[in-house]
């Protein structure tokens, strides 16, 4: 007689409420990236600008000769601007395969045959990308602000710039969510992560190149709304209350960014299904 019956047994244990399935998808996605050395190297590289800015604040706080480097509200805007490159890299690295790989492996029908909704599936996938993007935008920028307080030993700067924390938060969230929605929508259109990455890069870079060309032709920057990157920059400037860098009205850039969220939602609604219906 066997000591342990390895046959099929009915489950007698507890069953958890199934409303938090997106957290399981998110946790699995996060862990799968954190286990990759190449990805960790990218994240470390994305934090190098933070180290540079932290050193700058340290010197400005401790050496009077370096007072010219003293932090200003604009410095935080510049830092977030510089992180745009790493947002681009991390978005492609993490986001390109999030749905495309599931589509390649026909995993959507497995996911959606479990007690979770399509919205929860997308939320779980988006949480992975959003977490990593916030980890290179919001977190280092807020940390820089904290370092300013620590190195100067005073809240004077923070008190004088009370709008900085909301501005940093809002600008980071806008950058993060616009990129995340666009990348996920593109990822849902293909079964190839590589192709999705190329299309995303194409959308970002090609639209900016078109903007550059139109700027040369028209002699102004009123057409900045055609550029994915320029819209994010313009909106960021408005959020930080610095002079907008392009002539396009801020409202137009807001509308363009809203479209960059609404269109991906529509695409995701069409593409994330348990079965692909080809009528």
């Amino acid at each position: 007689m066997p000591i342990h019956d390895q046959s099929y047994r009915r489950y007698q244990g507890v069953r958890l409420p199934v409303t938090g399935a997106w957290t399981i998808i998110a946790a699995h996605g996060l862990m799968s990236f954190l286990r990759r050395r190449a990805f960790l190297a990218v994240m470390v590289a994305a934090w190098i600008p933070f180290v540079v800015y932290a050193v700058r604040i340290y010197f400005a706080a401790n050496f009077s000769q370096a007072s010219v480097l003293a932090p200003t509200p604009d410095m935080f805007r510049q830092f977030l601007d510089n992180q745009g490159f790493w947002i681009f890299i991390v978005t492609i690295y993490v986001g390109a395969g999030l749905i495309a790989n599931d589509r390649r492996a026909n995993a959507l029908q497995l996911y959606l045959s479990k007690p979770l909704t399509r919205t929860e599936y997308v939320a779980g996938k988006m949480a992975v990308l959003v977490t990593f993007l916030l980890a290179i935008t919001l977190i280092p920028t807020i940390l820089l602000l904290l370092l300013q307080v620590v190195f100067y030993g005073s809240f004077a700067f923070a008190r004088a710039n009370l709008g900085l924390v909301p501005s940093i938060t809002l600008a980071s969230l806008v950058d993060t969510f616009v990129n995340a929605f666009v990348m996920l929508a593109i990822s849902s259109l293909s079964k190839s992560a590589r192709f999705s990455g190329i299309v995303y890069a194409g959308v970002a870079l090609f639209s900016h190149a078109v903007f550059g060309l139109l700027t040369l032709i028209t002699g102004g920057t009123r057409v900045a709304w055609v550029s994915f990157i320029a819209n994010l920059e313009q909106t960021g400037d408005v959020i930080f209350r610095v002079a907008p860098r392009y002539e396009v009205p801020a409202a137009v850039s807001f509308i363009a960014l809203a479209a960059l969220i609404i269109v991906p939602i529509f695409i995701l609604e069409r593409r994330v299904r348990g079965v692909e219906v080809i009528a």
Partner: protein
Amino acid sequence: MADLVVQLQQVSVTYGKTHALTNVSATFAPGAVGLLGPNGAGKSTLLRALLGFVSPDQGAMSVLGLDVRAHPREIRRRIGYMPETDAHIPGMNAVTFVAYCGRLAGLPAADAMQRAHEVLFYVGLGEARYRNSETYSTGMKQRLKLGQALVHDPDLLFLDEPTNGLDPKGRDEMLALVQDLAHNKGVNLILSSHLLPDVEATCHHVVVLDKGRVATHGPIAELKGPTGRVFELRIKGDLPAFVDVLRAHQMDCHGTDDDVMRVFVPAGMGAQDVFGLAAQHRVQVRHLRPSVPTLEDVFARAVGEP
């Protein structure tokens, strides 16, 4: 009828201009029920509609007593689905994959992992459970799909063509698993297949679909039942003309893979009537042997195969 696991009333599903299901009304009893039909009959569409993947244009469906439209999440919590196509979650080994599916279905992490080990042993992947599922053979992938469908101990299993792509040995092993689940473990299951022997080997009941409609349904034994007798017949002579003659005398017949026909002789008639008709139409009977009705006969009669 409260113990029916699935009920469908006038369900229609269309893909664009294609009618995948047309006014399908059927009931699925507890135990193992075969969903039988040729390719394109609407079997997978029916399962997908029950899972909520496609919305019917009309009709009502209930699974385990729950309305599919009103309680999709609760239904999916209580069912397991083994899809027809190759499906896995990329970048995982088998045990992680099955445990992950268990967690998505509401099992606590530790229980999900324990169940993953158990079901992988049960489906015969115990030794290979730490291998990346993308390196699995077709047969192993089929077993893995069954494992992920079982991990949360569903009340009802949807098996869509579970023997697809399997060699004869693998097919026998898969059918043995299905049979064990249905007959020994008390799991209700719906087995969708176009392979008659698979359904006959594992199921008590059958629903036969053809061109998106229910051709027949009921207990297999009843459908095969003694409403007449079946003969194997081989003749020499004008075959199409003789088939017309037999049909004119209410004897349905259909061909098999070789040159032997299967003839359904209604109650009250027998071999003598077949011989009589053959003599009357100058056809030579080379072979006439009583046979046992099979599901294949039921299927052929239901879908009107020649």
